[in-house]
């Protein structure tokens, strides 16, 4: 090894597909119900009232829980993606811890996607402390070279 890098996960517009996958990972019920728009669309409150916020990725309130507001993810000018979650929904479970769990799943999906693109085997194990160990394993050198890839 030569470098050891520490990074903080940030949702990015380049990986909206991974964000959608991560949302489905933490709540399979949302599979096929997450809206993805090229341009931001309005979010609505639990009364059906149009809220001031808009977002490209939207989970409508009826899929969240009774009395919930829409949850959104908004693309920012710098290419990052911010969660839009009402104070009520933060108190009802979609809080910082929930976002942390979402970040973990998102980071795995991004890592997995890159590993597959590199032609690596992707192996995930869960550590006792709740962290995930994801190994991107280089295939045999000959197959690697035939695939035109390299480290």
């Amino acid at each position, binding site marked *: *090894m030569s470098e050891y*890098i*520490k990074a903080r*996960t*940030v949702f990015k517009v380049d990986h909206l597909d991974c964000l959608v996958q991560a949302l489905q990972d933490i709540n399979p019920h949302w599979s096929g119900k997450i809206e993805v728009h090229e341009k931001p669309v309005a979010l609505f409150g639990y009364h059906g009232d149009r809220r001031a916020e808009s977002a490209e990725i939207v989970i409508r309130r009826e899929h969240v829980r009774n009395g919930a507001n829409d949850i959104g993810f908004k693309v920012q000018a710098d290419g990052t993606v911010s969660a839009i979650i009402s104070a009520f929904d933060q108190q009802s479970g979609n809080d910082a811890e929930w976002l942390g769990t979402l970040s973990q799943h998102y*980071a*795995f999906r991004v890592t997995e996607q890159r590993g597959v693109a590199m032609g690596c085997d992707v192996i995930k194990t869960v550590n006792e402390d709740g*962290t995930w160990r994801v190994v991107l394993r280089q295939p045999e050198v000959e197959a690697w070279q035939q695939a035109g890839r390299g*480290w």
Partner: protein
Amino acid sequence: MASEIVVTIGKGGIVTIEGEGYHGPVCDTQLRALAVDLGDIEAVETKPEFFEQTRSNVQTQNIGG
């Protein structure tokens, strides 16, 4: 030992990335590209093996010259 990139992902989304099974700076580009994909790089630590590879290259040049 096979060459691997090992990513450890914490519950809050804190990630550590390192290469295993090779020496030198060969794979650092891949590590950094993955880190940028994942988010903001907070720290980079260079391992001693990086310099081992550099020294090895210099010695090879001296012998050949």
